[in-house]
């Protein structure tokens, strides 16, 4: 597992943390807005979507905080013991990210099945988590699982877009495709750390698309408020 520490090129230290904070803020905004829609409509899907994005936001927040702490410890480390301590923070960050991100992805995948039995959601999550725990290369296993879950989410969003032809939904679909590609790039980052950078850039594109979709919704919603149906 030691190679995890070197997935990021040295020049990218700090930039990755900034990007993770941006991802955390955008996903948190989506989560809060989903909960607002849930309060207004009582729609179960909005609550689940909010919950999924809250988990994803937590995954990036924890990753950024613990990653940042580990990097600062690494910079000042003078002994092997200090290096190992920094390593522990880095691992904690990655494990927290794995746990919460898979939780978010499992919830989104569960939503695509349109099944109201919550046990299905827990089954997807437990299976994914078990696969990561048992995997020798947990880092690669996590990203591979994310790619698989995102594949199912994308298929569902393609079907939804084909049915509705909604432009904003196309942005959301595009976001999931970029997230899929980003996660796919991360799989190769332990062997070539440039993929870590590409993965972050692709994820950044994904979250910008989600943000654009959210801003459009808010703008259209404010316009619609003037005309009570």
């Amino acid at each position, binding site marked *: 597992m030691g190679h995890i520490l070197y997935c990021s090129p040295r020049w990218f230290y700090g930039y990755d943390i900034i990007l993770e904070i941006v991802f955390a803020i955008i996903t948190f905004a989506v989560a809060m807005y989903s909960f607002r829609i849930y309060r207004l409509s009582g*729609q179960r899907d909005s609550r689940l979507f909010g919950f999924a994005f809250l988990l994803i936001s937590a995954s990036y927040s924890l990753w950024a905080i613990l990653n940042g702490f580990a990097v600062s410890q690494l910079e000042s480390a003078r002994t092997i013991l200090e290096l190992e301590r920094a390593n522990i923070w880095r691992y904690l960050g990655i494990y927290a990210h794995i746990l919460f991100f898979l939780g978010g992805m499992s919830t989104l995948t569960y*939503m695509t099945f349109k099944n109201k039995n919550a046990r299905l959601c827990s089954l997807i999550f437990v299976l994914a988590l078990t696969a990561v725990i048992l995997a020798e290369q947990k880092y690669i296993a996590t990203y591979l699982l994310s790619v698989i879950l995102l594949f199912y989410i994308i298929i569902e969003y393609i079907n939804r877009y084909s049915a509705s032809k909604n432009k904003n939904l196309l942005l959301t679909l595009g976001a999931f495709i970029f997230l899929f590609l980003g996660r796919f790039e991360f799989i190769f980052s332990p062997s070539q750390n440039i993929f870590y950078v590409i993965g972050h850039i692709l994820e950044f594109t994904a979250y910008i698309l989600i943000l654009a979709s959210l801003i*459009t*919704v808010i703008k259209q919603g404010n316009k619609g408020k003037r005309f009570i149906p």
Partner: protein
Amino acid sequence: MEKKRNKLEIIRDILKVIRERNGKIKPTHILYKSNLSHQMMGDYLKELMGKGFIKEIKVKRGKSYIITDKGLDYLNQYALITNFTSSFGLGE
């Protein structure tokens, strides 16, 4: 042929009918105006009461339904709700 209404639209239509009747209406009027079967209307009314959008009140001859502040909020923010759910592919 008219497009089949989705759940959010049906809820909007029921709440609109109640609001247009000064916020109070008998179930027969809802049935007539909302274009739903008796069974479906019953299910929707139960759901709307569960969500706190409407309240059932006893009147001399049976019962009536009144729209709550939460129900009015739903109507006022309907554009926002539908834009959000359609943009992010949500729907029960």
